[in-house]
């Protein structure tokens, strides 16, 4: 098969000589022959349907050979890249030879578009597969991970696990609690601010300077890097602590709390809530507002009882997506909440660990530096739980948008 492809590739010069006859010089032809060739071209210049299979098989084999010869060790990525390039290239050449330039170009781009889709699927599948295949077995064999924290787990325990097969110690409970508390606090801050701001924008602002300013800065806020949000919350709380408590080391220690992390997440969450809510409020027909005003209902009651309920499913869906977004954030929590091994339910005092930070720490600084496997296992299990939480929120958002939309009875 591969030799067939090569022979096609070799015949290229010959093919491009034929090309002008078929297409490039129609003006030289007499009308009759022109007509004839056009009729022919409806069916004649089509390559056989099995061409792509031949090309695919040829490219695969050739790529396998190249990868084995050129690379010191076999690389799946390298194999895929070379095979893809060979396939798309050979199909172009075949098409160019058997059909014409325009068809070949069209086909080339069609293949590239399909390729880009497949290329994008690879990391998606790889990420999800890695997390599930590494995290699920750990979770199934150690369900205690969900109910234990890392308090009292020392490097010796992990060395025992790795070398002597002792059961996996510790767990992700403190991370779960931290994520829930921090996300909850952030939602408590962001949702009212975001809702009221978007109500101002749609119901009161009428594009005045103030509302245009808010819109612009909401756009700016959407672009704030998450780590900068963390630094902001930290810097802000440090200033407040210095002004109220003092700048002793103990006082500065108290800057890092779950609440500081929640402020950081709010900076990221508010713009998301504002934009999605504003979009939903704008969709509510003005006729409904007018109907309510005409019944002698005050503006604020109209907003609360007519506008918000009508847009509620969209708003709830947007808010859920915003929660999902910040629940997976790592960097801002890393610089604002510290890192502890114990479960801490109080976001206003002491350090707090969030699940993403726990995953990061377990991978970067394993509990037992000499025996990293147990830490890696805990990290993958935590990643699985985190993905389940975030994906669950995303699906919930879609379900809310779909099933709680206002019923028209139709």
């Amino acid at each position: 098969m591969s030799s067939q492809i090569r022979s096609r590739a070799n015949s290229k010069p010959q093919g491009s000589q034929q090309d002008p006859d078929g297409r490039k010089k129609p003006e030289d032809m007499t009308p009759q022959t022109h007509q004839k060739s056009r009729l022919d071209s409806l069916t004649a210049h089509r390559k056989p349907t099995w061409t792509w299979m031949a090309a695919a098989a040829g490219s695969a084999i050739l790529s396998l050979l190249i990868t084995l010869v050129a690379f010191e060790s076999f690389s799946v990525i390298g194999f895929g890249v070379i095979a893809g390039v060979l396939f798309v290239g050979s199909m172009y050449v075949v098409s160019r030879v058997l059909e014409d330039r325009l068809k070949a170009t069209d086909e080339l781009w069609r293949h590239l578009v399909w390729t880009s889709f497949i290329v994008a699927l690879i990391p998606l599948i790889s990420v999800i597969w890695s997390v599930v295949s590494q995290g699920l077995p750990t979770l199934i064999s150690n369900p205690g991970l969900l109910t234990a924290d890392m308090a009292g787990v020392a490097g010796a325990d992990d060395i025992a696990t790795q070398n002597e097969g002792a059961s996996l110690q510790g767990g992700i409970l403190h991370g779960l609690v931290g994520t829930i508390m921090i996300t909850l606090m952030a939602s408590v801050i962001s949702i009212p601010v975001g809702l009221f701001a978007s109500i101002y924008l749609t119901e009161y602002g009428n594009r005045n300077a103030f509302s245009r300013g808010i819109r612009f800065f909401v756009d700016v806020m959407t672009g704030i890097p998450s780590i900068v949000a963390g630094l902001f919350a930290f810097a802000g709380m440090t200033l407040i602590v210095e002004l109220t408590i003092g700048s002793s080391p103990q006082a500065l220690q108290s800057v890092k709390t779950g609440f500081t992390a929640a402020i950081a997440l709010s900076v990221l969450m508010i713009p998301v809530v504002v934009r999605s809510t504003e979009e939903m409020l704008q969709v509510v027909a003005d006729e409904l507002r007018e109907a309510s005003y005409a019944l002698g209902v005050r503006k604020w009651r109209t907003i609360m009882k007519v506008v918000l309920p009508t847009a509620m499913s969209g708003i709830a869906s947007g808010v859920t997506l915003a929660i999902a977004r910040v629940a997976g954030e790592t960097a801002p929590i890393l610089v604002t909440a510290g890192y502890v091994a114990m479960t801490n339910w109080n976001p206003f005092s002491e350090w707090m660990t969030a699940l993403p930070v726990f995953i990061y720490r377990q991978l970067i600084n394993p509990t037992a530096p000499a025996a990293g496997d147990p830490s890696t296992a805990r990290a993958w299990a935590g990643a699985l739980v985190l993905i389940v939480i975030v994906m669950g929120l995303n699906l919930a958002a879609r379900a809310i948008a779909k099933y709680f939309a206002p019923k028209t009875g139709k």
Partner: protein
Amino acid sequence: MAKRIQTVDLDCYYGDFLAVSDINIDIEPRSVTAFIGPSGCGKTTFLRTLNRMHEVTPGARAEGKILLDDEDINAPNVDPVRVRSTVGMVFQRPNPFPTMSIRENVLAGYQLNGIRLSRSEADNVLERSLTGANLWGEVKDRLDRPGGGLSGGQQQRLCIARTIAIEPDVILMDEPASALDPISTLAIEDLIHELKKDYTVVIVTHNMQQAARVADKTAFFNLQAIGEPGKLIEYDDTTTIFNNPANQQTEDYISGRFG
């Protein structure tokens, strides 16, 4: 309950643009008054000033007096929200609240204002309003279904039921049948005849036959040119307007020479 409406030197603005100028009109209680005229002549704008809905549009305002039985509802210290509960309005397109059932839609004027009715009071209002809107028979078995599930004509009558549920003194209708089919239109016109027993009804319509069928008095509005304010040209008994108009513009309009 029905009240007389008088306007004195009323001007309506959108920002700096004078849309309707110098309207003096005297609308009888317990009658149907129709506003006719070409598009853009300001009849809807004028209608919306009568329950101060005009000013809901950003930048819009009205100057002059609007007397509701001698009480000026356009005075600066008057709360527009209270005016709207006295002067009800029905819109061009039926707009029942999509999140509410038929029952909740009728009671919306109370519910949205946070007024609690006892079960029997609510049932009374419900039946009286739906009967008043000629809709009771059609919906009495499905009061808990969404209001959006009704046909267009039924939705519009539901909106009328919602308006009469709060017992206004005046009902304003802005082309209430223009989005409806002929049969639904007939039902609405029959209803307007019923309503004038208890209410002052003012209706804007593009349909001159409709004005002739339902109205006791008719007001013809016109504007001299695009960008000029709309004015009240002639106001008289409907039969006079359609058979023997005093003004040449009115005659041109009703005989179909423009508009």
